[in-house]
């Protein structure tokens, strides 16, 4: 078990390094320079060259990469080229926004999706068919379109929820919930559909398995067969899908944050991308990769807890 965790941790470190390297190289492949971004359109070539030299842009590539890594180890992501703000402080204040939406949407997708999927598998018939058709369509709908539709229906027409804006949890938990409700809902529709599909397929397969027949033959009550035994075996692929969902929601939060005007990581990456703010861009990549890697780590542990075979390996 310890070796297992160590292996996964080593892999996580390598992944973060690769992400940093890729974004670092991308930055240097660009034809603009940090000096030009920092000084804006009005700067002369000489000013820009001087600024680049000050920022260390002219140093050898490996030295710059080494410097950045050394900075990273001290948890220092540098400062913004645009307004000079401290990037790690900025991202630290944005992380909770993105994380709370991604976590809530993943949990809700999991609960709703598993309920629908298990119902489809256990009941079958017309209801099962309706669920599988419905989820097939729902998972293909563009999140931002669903989001705009939800704003129109729930916010403008029904007046139930605020359309945009974010209230921190610490300010007012009730209004925080209201402010994240629409984005979470928009993300959950597609997410729950994918989970429903996976859990229905997985549950159907398990319910047809030989060990389920053994349980029936020992007179085990049907609810116990379904919800203790079958669901536990069926949960392994569902957990994997939930993890992928979380990663996709976290990375894909940029669109939903833009739509609902939420001050999260996605918004920061959009701003950095459109302004050429290299340090901020690399910083977002680093934070996002670390989150993804941590979630993958957690997933491996959950899978190991569910599946004794993985545990032994």
């Amino acid at each position, binding site marked *: 078990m310890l070796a297992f965790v160590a292996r996964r941790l080593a892999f996580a470190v390598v992944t973060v390094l690769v992400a940093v390297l890729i974004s670092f190289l991308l930055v240097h492949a660009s034809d603009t320079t940090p000096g030009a971004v920092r000084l804006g359109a009005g700067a002369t070539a000489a000013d820009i060259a001087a600024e680049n030299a000050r920022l260390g842009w002219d140093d050898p590539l490996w030295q710059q990469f080494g410097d950045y890594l050394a900075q990273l180890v001290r948890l220092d992501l540098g400062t913004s080229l645009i307004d000079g703000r401290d990037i790690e402080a900025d991202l630290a204040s944005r992380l909770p926004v993105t994380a709370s939406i991604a976590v809530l949407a993943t949990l809700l997708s999991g609960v709703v999706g598993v309920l629908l999927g298990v119902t489809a598998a256990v009941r079958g018939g017309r209801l099962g068919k309706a669920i599988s058709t419905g989820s*097939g369509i729902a998972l293909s709908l563009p999140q931002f379109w669903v989001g*705009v539709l939800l704003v129109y229906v729930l916010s403008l027409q029904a007046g139930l929820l605020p359309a945009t804006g974010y209230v921190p949890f610490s300010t007012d938990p009730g209004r925080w919930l209201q402010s994240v409700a629409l984005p979470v809902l928009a993300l959950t529709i597609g997410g729950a559909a994918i989970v429903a599909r996976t859990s229905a397929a997985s549950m159907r397969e398990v319910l047809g398995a*030989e060990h389920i027949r053994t349980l029936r033959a020992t007179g085990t009550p049907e609810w116990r067969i379904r919800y203790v035994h079958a669901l536990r075996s069926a949960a392994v692929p569902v957990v994997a899908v939930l993890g992928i969902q979380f990663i996709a929601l976290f990375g894909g939060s940029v669109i939903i944050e833009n739509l609902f005007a939420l001050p999260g990581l996605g918004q920061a990456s959009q701003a950095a991308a459109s302004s050429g703010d290299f340090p901020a861009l690399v910083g977002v990549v680093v934070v996002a990769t670390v989150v993804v890697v941590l979630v993958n780590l957690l997933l491996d542990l959950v899978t190991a807890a569910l599946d004794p075979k993985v545990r032994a390996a």
Partner: protein
Amino acid sequence: MSAPQPLPDADLLTPDEPATEVAPPSRRRGVPAFLRRPGGALGAAWLVVVVLASLTAPLWVPYDVTAQDLGDRLSLPSADHLLGTDPLGRDLLSRIATAGSLPLLSSALMLVVAFGIGLPLALVAAERPGRTERLISRATEVLLALPATVLLLAVIGIVGNDIPLVMAVFGVLLSAAVYRVMLGVAQSVRQRLYVDAARVDGLGSVRVNVRHVLPAMGTVIAVQAAQLFGIGILVVAGLAFLGFGPGEPDPSWGFMINDASSHLFDGPWLLVPSGLVLALTVVAANELADALAARGGAGARRRSRRARTTTPAPAPSAVPAADPAPVPDDAVLAVRDLRVSVVDGPDLVTGVSLTVRRGTVLGLVGESGCGKSMTARSLLGLLPDGVEVSGGSISFQGTDLVGLAEGELRGYRGSRIALISQEPMVALDPAFSVATQLTGPIRRHRGVGRREARTIAAQLLRNVGIVDADRILGSYPHQLSGGMAQRVCIALALTGEPDLLVADEPTTALDVTVQAEILSLLRALVRDTGLSVVLVTHDLGVVADLCDDVAVMYAGEVVEAGATTAVLDEPRHPYTMALLGADPHVPDGEPVPERLASIAGTVPSPGTWPVGCRFAGRCLFATDECRTPFPAVPAHGGGLVRCVRVEDLALHRISWTPEEAGAEIAAVDVVPTEITAGGAR
């Protein structure tokens, strides 16, 4: 293509000459199977329309995409503007159609890059397992763990709004996902024998891949391509929604939705056309992928439906045994005239009557597909979905189990009737320890506490011959050997102290040495506990070894039954003789036969059973009288034999040896009257 083709298999299924297997469904040439599913056909049609309309947009769109008409802003669909207009009075139909080519083409580019990298890597990795495969797999794992959307934004931040280039980079990231899926497929394809054969024939690696491996991967490639295409469209639209796409005044699907989101008050209609086209295109790609993936499954389903509708009505079961045999006093189980059928389909088992006396073992023997397992499973009410008991009675200790509600049956399962299955390795729940799986039923059946249940579980394991019961209790099923798993299964069956044990080929999946151990364990259990057993097997050696009575089944009915010694020493039915002749076991002291007899042909499948004797088609002694219904006759004391020629055959002391049989048949056929006369005299 439109002319209905004659069904090629129609004449194979005439009632007097039953086909042994149902022919594959007729294929209408030219229509791929995936297009016969509504989702597949609609999805493909929509994609074709969108692609054609988008690529030819400059030729047909009614308005210039940038032509504004501020007097006609945000209008609803009309004759002038079929889909309405946007906030600047521009025609939506023209803008949507023109905007389509960018997402479609750049997603196609993305696919080319993703498969161009992922597929060759998968083929190479599948060809060189070991270091090369590990290296590529690790690299792609890292690629998969990168946050794709953020990286794409980083790319845009650096190269600008060059969408095709950005999608090509996305293709590089996706190649890791393509690799993963394709590696699995390529590995399994390479394991197929014909690929091995091609390699042994000296075909070069590239040619092996191109000729044999790639074609077999076609379906999976198509499914994944369709899915990824949908994702690509979504990503392009999402980027455009964020403003990373063709800038105003050029149209894009994503930005039109963004535009709509700021006009929800004054022009909500704006949200519909662009969003619907985008959504439908992605739905179409996914439906197409589903239809492609389901291709194999659809064919199989179609076949089974055909099998049901075109096969002749089930032959009226040969007149049931003269009169229902009386149930002896010491019978634990008495099955009478049992019929098991597919719901709305053919019979699987007909007219089966069995009696199991207390403390005895009844063997159910026959080839695969004779209905042994169906009969056994019906005793516990555990038939597969879509199969039901459609007639007869199963009297267990005086109660008829047929027609009992599921809840009432559950009261019998485990506590009165228990099951041991064929595949011990998959019969236990892989997610729970042996202890959990044993103590659950023990607590339920015996009403004891957790700790006592564990003591009982350990005792049960010792009773089935497990020495280190405590270690096994802590194990998980994947840690057990086959023989050990079967012992645990037997212990599990004993948790409820049942009166009847149904053992469905309990030793088939085990090694020969382990088989003997399990059989002697069963024998000891019967001797020591007074348990009754129904033992399903195709091994006559097991029957001789263990069973007091035996019922030989063929094509869904019992053809011969009686005390084991009587049936095996003096078989009366040609099928029993044939089974004995084909049995490789040689009793001590008897000469080894020069060659084993064989039975030509296969068991007719349900729904294709002939009228009269179902074995007639394979029987060396069959005559015309075998092809009309006839009753079973009593034999072997309390047993029966279902052969119309049983007297003739007995008279000629016929045995199942192909060489002799030819002569015997000739003799019997030539002088039928004399035989009857001789019998009468």
